[in-house]
């Protein structure tokens, strides 16, 4: 990386959408060494540029547990498998290009699935997150119809995990109406209302949707991998920012991994960004 280089810009004729591909290790067996796993990335109409990797500590044991990743040609990204901490919140510089319909190759040594166990009930929070952008041909019209200048704005929404919302693949939906002015979403934050801090037991997943209701992840993402105030995945922010015109909605699906004994929990979700103030 050169000193003082200009900010990255999407090439002309293309548009980028922030996206997270996830690998869920729920189906693996603890203690196993698993080779040649594949995380499908890209699709028929887009390529993927990998920029950040997180969640290494969620899928393998502390050393000797190790992780090895491969590029789209099958070449390893390291000279030897790395301890799991090396893939906790690790940047990829420069961004790594994965063409459409390629895979991120993955080997795991000494699998240990992070889990939420209460009595005989167990749910898994065993997931790696691969952050980057989907790049498609064509332009996305993120231009406002008025002259504007930006002002920071935060939409807030409280959500309660009641006793009935225990671990289940069926999500509940949070909808935030974007009122009055166009809004650019930069990041999410989540706070436990009882403590004012990031949840001590962050056992739930989020799926965020853009203004066209296109999901921004291949599967629900652990909250600690998606939130800017997470203690384990700093700098989780949306690049480019997500544009929501006035009158649209920000839709967020929440998937619980909690069990009844841990509930109720009330969280406040902050949608942090910039309002486009008319001038």
């Amino acid at each position, binding site marked *: *990386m*050169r000193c003082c*280089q200009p*900010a*990255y*810009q*999407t090439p002309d004729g293309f548009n980028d959408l922030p996206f997270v591909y996830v690998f869920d290790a729920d189906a693996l067996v603890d203690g196993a060494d698993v080779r040649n796993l594949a995380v499908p990335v890209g699709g028929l109409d887009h390529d993927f*540029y990998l*920029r*950040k990797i997180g969640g290494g500590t969620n899928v393998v044991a*502390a*050393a*000797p547990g190790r992780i090895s990743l491969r*590029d789209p040609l099958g070449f390893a*990204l*390291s*000279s*030897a498998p*790395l*301890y*799991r*901490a*090396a*893939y*906790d*919140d*690790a*940047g*990829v*510089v*420069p*961004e*790594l290009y994965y063409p459409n319909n390629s895979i991120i190759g993955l080997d795991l040594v000494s699998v240990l699935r992070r889990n939420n166990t209460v009595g005989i009930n167990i749910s898994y929070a065993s997931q790696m997150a691969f*952050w980057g*952008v989907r790049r498609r041909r064509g332009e996305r019209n*993120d*231009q406002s119809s008025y002259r504007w200048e*930006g002002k920071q704005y935060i939409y807030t929404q409280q959500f309660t995990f009641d006793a009935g919302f225990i671990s289940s693949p069926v999500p509940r939906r949070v909808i935030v109406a974007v009122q009055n002015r166009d809004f*650019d979403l*930069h*990041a999410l934050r989540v706070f436990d209302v009882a403590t004012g801090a990031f949840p001590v037991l962050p056992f739930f997943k989020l799926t965020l949707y853009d203004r066209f209701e296109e999901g921004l992840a291949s599967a629900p993402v652990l909250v600690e991998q998606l939130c*800017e105030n997470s203690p384990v995945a*700093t*700098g*989780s*922010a*949306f*690049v*480019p*920012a997500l*544009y929501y015109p006035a009158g649209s909605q920000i839709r967020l699906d929440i998937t619980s991994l909690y069990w009844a004994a841990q509930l109720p929990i009330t969280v406040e979700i902050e949608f*942090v960004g*910039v309002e*486009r103030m008319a001038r």
Partner: protein
Amino acid sequence: MNLAQAINPFAPPAVEGIGQQDAGFIDVDYTYTYDVTTLVGVSLRDQQVPISQDADFYLRAVHYSQQAGFVGAFNYRLADAQGYQMSSGMITNGNLSNSAARPTVVFPEHMFPAGSRIIIDFDNVAGVEIRTQICFKGVKRYRLRK
């Protein structure tokens, strides 16, 4: 101004996107590792991490991890492919990052030619057996034919 293309102040540079910079080259993110198990009081000199022959390696950052149960202090010193040391003395691990998100930066980047090696001196000063992985993070630079 298209604010959506402006810098997101919450995003680190990697998430903002750092693309290919130089015409005539392709850089690929890569990490070389040095794995070592040392007993009490062991000092290792001129250990070598071979650089593969397919590309030059530009070292940009260093960080380390240790195996649970085998954690302890160590001193280290690096030398480049020509044998020139990169510090005036041994450096304690307290001055080396153990975070992949915030590794210890090597600035400016240091080039190790293809086929060369990173040279390491390593002292176990922990008083116990330690198992350490030092990660040398940077890019492999592949030259493109004109």
